[in-house]
């Protein structure tokens, strides 16, 4: 176990996690860099229920290639085939690009993507909280996944279905709603030259 960081949620619960896990948050990373005798970082805007979910995500994503990283840019020490442990990798290797044809890396990233999708399946309340937490804590992968989760719930649905899923009140009159859909109806009409 490497160096740990203590985080305090908005409702006063303490979480102790490895630096590698917590530092996926750019905010936590920069707060920890400042001199802090207790190594205790307060996060007043995140409650314990959400923070524990965020940390579960970060734990899974620590020492894994980011889902955004182009495969060619994955450093070789993160490749499962090369025994993934970051500790002990020589500094000269750490910045070298990994082969973009490495099947092990590709599979690892795909598995991670699948895990992410399962992580937020269906629960838009959770996605909402994770979206705000990812924004507040500046965690890129979590933001990406929460946004993707929300977008998936919108994609292909009509306005009424969207309202049900996202608990939105319809504050349009029927005429207003018709006008909006009419304005973009061209998107539904294919044209033959």
């Amino acid at each position, binding site marked *: 176990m490497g160096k740990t960081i203590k985080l305090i949620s908005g409702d006063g619960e303490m979480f102790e996690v490895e630096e590698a896990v917590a530092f996926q948050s750019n905010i936590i990373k920069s707060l920890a860099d400042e001199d802090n005798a207790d190594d205790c970082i307060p996060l007043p805007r995140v409650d314990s229920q959400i923070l524990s979910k965020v940390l579960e995500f970060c734990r899974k994503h620590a020492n894994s290639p980011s889902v955004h990283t182009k495969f060619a840019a994955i450093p070789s020490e993160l490749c499962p085939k090369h025994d993934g442990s970051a500790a002990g990798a020589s500094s000269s290797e750490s910045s070298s690009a990994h082969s973009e044809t490495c099947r092990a890396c590709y599979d690892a990233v795909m598995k991670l993507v699948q895990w992410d999708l399962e992580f937020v399946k269906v629960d838009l309340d959770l996605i909402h909280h994770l*979206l705000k937490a990812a924004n507040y804590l500046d965690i890129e992968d979590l*933001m990406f996944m929460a*946004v993707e989760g929300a977008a998936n719930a919108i994609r292909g649905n009509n306005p009424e279905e969207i309202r049900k899923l996202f*608990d939105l*009140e319809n504050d349009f009159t029927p005429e207003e709603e018709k006008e*909006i859909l009419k304005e973009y109806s061209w998107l539904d009409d*294919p044209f033959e030259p």
Partner: protein
Amino acid sequence: MGMWAVLPLDLLARVFSFLPPDSVARAMAACKHWLACARSRAAAPRHAPWLIALPARGGPACFAHDPALNRWHALPLDFLPCPLRLVAPVGRSLLCRLTASSDLRLVLLNPFTRQFRHLPDLATPRRNPAVGVIDSSPFSVIVAGGASGSGYEPKVELYEDGRVDRWESLGPMPVEFAVRLTVWTPNESVHAGDGAMYWMTSARAYSVMGFDLRRRTWREVKAPMADQLEWAALVRRPNRKLGLVGGAVGGQGTVWELTDKDAWAAVAEVPAKLGQRIWGCRKEAAALGGVVRCVGDERTVYLFKDFGSEMLVWEEERGWRLMEGRRRVSSTPIKAALLHPTLSVAEIFHASM
């Protein structure tokens, strides 16, 4: 109660940026907060741009091709008081010219949001000059060459949007460049990372001209395979270098890039079998006639013959692929450009003077 109804606009805009336009449109109709967000914030485009085609002689509509669904849409232009001809894409809009005016008069148009705005008249009125776009925010436009009653106009002028409401002179230019740019008016311009605006004559033998915006000097760069190229177009490459796509009909198609030493390096070749679907083989080519059209930006290049025909698409990471054409191919002459569809009201149309 709905937390999503009050989600901060920036976060909501990010969600919309992951969606194709038709999903954004339906999301807009869900509630007023979502409508306001999508209308006001155009998030950075994540999907491939669409191919927009305007009929060369104007018309009641223009056409937009969605690459994700390989589908064309007709966008009405009935809100325009006069027909327009496409010049170049700028930001999320199109720079166009008034078809009815022989002197160049430029108009900014967004066919998705149905907005348009006239640019001020040129300092020196002229016909058929070269037009170059600097796609920054705010944008600038350069006009060079052209002809008037008194002959060729070897002058360059610049318009910087939002700064002053007029064109400013950038001084004279060599007459031979003015002549070439007027007689073979370029179809596109590329503002490259070296600070130069590049144009290419619209017909063979292709000649590429560069105008250094800082030093205000001109130079000619020979096109690759200059004597053999039968179709060609300039494109911007991802590293902001100048690219040229071209080929000999019935032969190969190549993507080149201009290197620091003014030499052309081949970056990609069109696979022969795919290329033949577009320009036919040597024997057919002479009979078919017609010209291979090329439209591209940093990430995508389209090659096609006619409006509605099969299209060859190249993306650096995905390689080449064919997009099936429509049943009927139209012989309507069109000018095309790549543009990201917008559903939000474009601020560029509210530039205050």
